[in-house]
């Protein structure tokens, strides 16, 4: 245990003498939080629309006006042919083409049924799906508006026999409420997740590089011929990095609170407990990487490839529930996924200990498992 004290002192001295560490501590939170929080959004803003209005009637103009008035669409181009619209899609100057055929108004008045055509640039399928759904909603609302104007005047008689007499047309009002993020600020959702990513990068990369650097310098061999035990050595390596990561988390949380105004509904103690457990797994991965690589360059690459998979399967950017079943199973053994869930639940929804107990258990178990595997892999004596 005495040896641990000396090794720890050495690690701290080295860490704080390394200018790269200080830069890392400042740069990563800033770059990641500021850039990622702003950039990582799928939010579909205004879609640019090419309008081909062949009807040129009050009602066709009304349809276009309703779409634009919603704030979701901009009528940025207009022409007389769908072909030109299609070309605009190809050139990416618009996201969709709205084509209103001649006779739109006539059909609405006569048959109560009008048709329009929507051509979407579906390169980004998800965005196209959402834009399309907005357009449908707005057009349906416009139809309801026309109902009031058209039905009493025209063809009411024909509708009568089907509707029970003396009773009104069914009226449905839908009130929608979004819980936990009333301002719909996407950054509130992303920032806790990005913090997790931050901890992961700091934890794994620093650990891997730190140990591999000693390998490259030959000082690792020197330590391995001393009586220092594996457990003491690994503790001395991981503890300072664990502390640094916790400091990064505190800085990150402060930035999240005061720069991004992320609500902190739940208990920060719970967040720190989750981080403390999660970091054991993250550092364990770094330790493992250091055992299978010889140079810092290799360590970077191995680490990068692992993190890549790890990140994509974590639900940070894309919802886990959208993944196919097998991928969800894989995602379930990813500790990062559970920590992100915990962070979001505690910070945004005010989840308490009973709500996130399962996540904490998974984090604890995965920490133990990862560390055990990595320690088994680490040998003082090569085979």
């Amino acid at each position, binding site marked *: 245990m005495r040896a641990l004290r000396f090794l720890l002192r050495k690690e701290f001295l080295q860490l704080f003498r390394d200018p790269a560490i200080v830069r890392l501590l400042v740069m990563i939170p800033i770059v990641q939080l500021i*850039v990622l929080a702003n*950039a990582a959004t*799928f939010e579909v803003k205004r879609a640019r629309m090419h309008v081909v209005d062949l009807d040129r009637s009050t009602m066709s103009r009304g349809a276009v006006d309703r779409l634009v008035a919603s704030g979701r669409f901009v009528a940025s181009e207009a022409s007389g042919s769908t072909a030109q619209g299609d070309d605009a899609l190809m050139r990416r100057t618009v996201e969709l083409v709205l084509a209103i055929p001649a006779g739109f108004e006539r059909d609405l008045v006569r048959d109560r049924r009008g048709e329009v055509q929507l051509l*979407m640039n579906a390169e980004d399928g998800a965005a196209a799906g959402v834009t399309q759904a907005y357009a449908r909603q707005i057009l349906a609302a416009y139809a309801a508006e026309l109902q009031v104007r058209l039905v009493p005047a025209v063809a009411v008689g024909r509708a009568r026999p089907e509707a*029970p007499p003396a009773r009104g047309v069914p009226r449905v009002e839908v009130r929608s409420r979004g819980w936990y993020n009333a301002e719909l600020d996407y950054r509130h959702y992303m920032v806790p997740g990005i913090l997790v990513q931050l901890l992961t990068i700091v934890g794994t990369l620093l650990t891997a590089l730190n140990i591999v650097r000693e390998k490259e310098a030959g000082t690792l061999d020197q330590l391995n011929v001393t009586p220092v035990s594996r457990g003491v050595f690994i503790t001395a390596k991981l503890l300072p990095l664990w502390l640094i990561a916790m400091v990064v988390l505190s800085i990150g949380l402060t930035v999240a609170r005061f720069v991004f105004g992320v609500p902190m509904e739940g208990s920060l103690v719970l967040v720190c407990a989750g981080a403390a457990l999660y970091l054991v797994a993250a550092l364990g991965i770094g330790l493992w990487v250091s055992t299978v690589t010889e140079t810092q360059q290799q360590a970077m690459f191995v680490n990068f490839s692992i993190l890549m998979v790890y990140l994509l399967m974590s639900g940070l950017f894309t919802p886990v529930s959208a993944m196919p079943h097998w991928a969800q199973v894989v995602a379930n053994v990813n500790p990062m996924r559970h920590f992100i869930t915990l962070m979001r639940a505690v910070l945004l929804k005010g989840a308490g200990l009973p709500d996130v107990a399962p996540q904490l258990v998974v984090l604890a178990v995965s920490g133990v498992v990862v560390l055990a595997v990595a320690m088994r892999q680490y040998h003082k004596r090569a085979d």
Partner: protein
Amino acid sequence: MRVRDRLQALRAFVTKEARHILRDRQTLTILLLMPLAQVVLFGFAIRTDVNEIRFAVVDPAPDAASLGLRARFAGTDRFRTVATVPTVAALEPLFRRGDVEVALVVPRGLGDALRDGTPARLQLITDASNPNTGTTMQTYAGAVIQQWQAGLPGTRGAVRIEPQVRMRFNPTLESVNLFVPGLIALVLTLVSAQMTAISLSREKERGTMEILLVSPLHPWQIILGKVAPYLLLAFANVVTALVAAWLVFDVPFRGSLVLLLAASTLYALVGLALGVFIAAVTDSQRAAMTGSMLGTMLPSTLLSGMIFPIASLPLPLQVLSNIVPARWFIVIVRGVMLKGAGVVHLWQELAVLTLMLVVLLAVATRSFKARLA
């Protein structure tokens, strides 16, 4: 004679570089497998569409109308009913644990209200902690209610506007079609810019660069020799990603392969020039790694439209995205692969990349000379 000597020297040098790359098996394996792994991951696992929404109903007094509405939700693929609870209060813990994402609150006496024509007040509650999926889920739920309403007796004669929607270029809305082009850009960036930067700076760090510089090789030959093997590697990666995308995921390829490969070469050269520049202005491998990470990988993933649409970025970042080469390249790849676009449609993007190449080459050679002279 002198030209022949030069070529001979260049060949020897390229061979040496290739040996370096081939000898580091681990890095090579990663470089060759990564595009495959990514195509598989993005193709199978990474979806941005919202499916299987966990749905709950609050229906304190079920009647025929409310059951009909619930059946509507049960009938769609998108919603999976996980709970039916009597009060709104009971929803709270379900939402907090993430068990439920959307809840529909049905008032008592829904059927009576519909029959009498008094307003039937439905309430939709969504977990908006992720505002994007929150809004999307709300929109989908709203659409289900609308359809249900349209099928109610008494609404039969209502006015309807029916949009005929055609999804151009990607009718099944597969996210993989969106991601594969981005992946090609990402892998090319990694191999060309990052590997070049690291390998050049390693040579500098070890002092072997000086040996090369005192040799009769021209600086441009040294750079060419360094980058040629990486260029080949980059090509192998592009082809792997394309073949995997085509075989496994049926990603369409509608345009000209020649145009795509030509554009890839152009982009790879831009990346290589960027790598040379980074190596010239940094002093150690570690600095070069950090530099290429911040200077190439981050912008290529975040500010390129690869995953996140550029239109969603705040304005300053949108402006910044214009100087990210990947942003232009991804437009080209998507255009060629998904839309069958030709030079006519893509000349602007190609011109931008060419301009970037010229500028970067000029800057890179200058700083390279300045640092080593």
